[in-house]
């Protein structure tokens, strides 16, 4: 019998090790798997390479990515919009390395990883600092650049310049869904979908928290936003546990 429902968040993040590459869904406050991130922090996991769109500013109680950054659990951050003082402080002091990726490219790289592709060409960022190289990936302690982004491969296709981008294959994904069933089928709600299905597709192991976990019934096949084979563990969020 297939049953991916776990009793609590701690049980789901048990395998996440120091140094792991972890993709995390969410955009702003919408669709951030805060319970899973809390569970990760409570396990005291460190040296993570986090892949997430935002720096996590503005979440109630500064939960989410902000907490991971504030507790210095992140060594490398792949993101498009890391706006959060907790990040910038650590970036300019050399504590955290950045891989700044245009948002659409970040989404597509996760999808490419999930789809088993070797990479793709996108017109995005062609002729900019994020493709031509030179952007500061890491500072030294004293604020001088230590590591610069190398120039990316580009190619002219039908007269237009495209940049080569490689797939992302994180070890783990932490995602937040609205509904889940025991097969791991997920359904999201409005803007909370964002990067969640993509992170789940890309990762070798995907952990989902869901507001509503159906222990007996299942989602209608046409209502599934992300099918179960992309999901390994499901846990109900505190929201549901509280009821």
């Amino acid at each position, binding site marked *: 019998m297939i049953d991916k429902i776990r009793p609590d968040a701690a049980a789901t993040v048990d395998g996440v090790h120091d140094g792991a590459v972890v993709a995390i869904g969410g*955009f*702003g*406050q*919408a*669709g951030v798997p805060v319970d899973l991130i809390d569970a990760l922090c409570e396990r005291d996991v460190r040296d993570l390479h986090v892949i997430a*769109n935002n*720096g996590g500013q*503005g979440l109630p109680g500064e939960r989410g990515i902000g907490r991971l950054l504030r507790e210095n659990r992140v060594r490398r951050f792949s993101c*498009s*919009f*890391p*706006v959060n003082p907790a990040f*910038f402080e650590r970036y300019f002091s050399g504590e955290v390395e*950045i891989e*700044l*990726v*245009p*948002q*659409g*490219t*970040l*989404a*597509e790289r*996760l*999808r490419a990883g999930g789809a088993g592709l070797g990479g793709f060409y*996108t*017109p*995005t*960022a*062609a*002729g*900019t*600092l*994020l493709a031509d190289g030179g*952007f500061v990936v890491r500072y030294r302690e004293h604020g001088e650049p230590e590591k610069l982004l190398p120039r990316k491969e580009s190619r002219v296709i039908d007269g237009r310049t495209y940049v080569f981008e490689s797939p992302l294959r994180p070890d783990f994904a932490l995602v937040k869904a609205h509904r889940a069933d025991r097969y791991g089928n997920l359904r*999201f*709600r*409005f*803007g*909370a*979908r*964002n*990067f*969640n*299905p*993509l992170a789940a597709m890309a990762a070798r192991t995907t952990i989902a928290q869901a507001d509503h976990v159906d222990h007996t019934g299942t989602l209608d096949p046409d209502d599934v*936003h992300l099918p179960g084979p992309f999901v390994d563990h499901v846990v109900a969020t505190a929201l549901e546990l509280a009821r």
Partner: protein
Amino acid sequence: MTAGLSRAQLARRVADDLEDGWCVNVGIGAPLLLPEQPTPGKEILYHCEHGLLGVGPAPAGEPDPDVTDAGKNPVTLLDGAASFDSSLSFAIARGGRLDLCVLGALQVGENGDLANWLVPGGNPGVGGAMDLAVGARRVWVMMTHLDKRGNPKLRKRCTFPLTGRGVVDRVYTDLAVFEFVDGVLTLRECAPGVTPEDLVPLTEATYRIDLQTRGVPA
């Protein structure tokens, strides 16, 4: 000179040029005021980069945390709204299905270059701007004519890192409207109380003057 449009008036001015049925992405900053503008007789589908379409003004009542714009402000979903993941959202953008995107800017070059993501030495954060700039059928910029230090933002060449090369179609500032006509930056309109002469010292870029007479809405 104290003439010039407020942020809300600028949004009103841009909204006036939108066409019925357009699918329009609104970037962070001033463009987020667009869905607040009524567009009588025109139905506009606003697109938010993270995966929403059909976004409307801020809610009158309790905000829904799952319904926000690209700036993470609460909005509403109108008739015809759709939700999707971020890869589909940017497929809409890069795939040419956005009639328009409206972006804020730090600088615009007279060659149509756009710089809107990084002040050298400042905090980096690119978001979806680079995807939108290369993907949308039209790119309009909505910005103040001068930066906070009083420097012109319309430049001969951008000095800040670029978002996209030669991508801008129009520029709406608090003082004027410019359009790239056959690749040439062209002054189309001055804000009420602003004369073409006023703009000369405030604009580093070279531009043609070919004014279009049209009333600025009240």
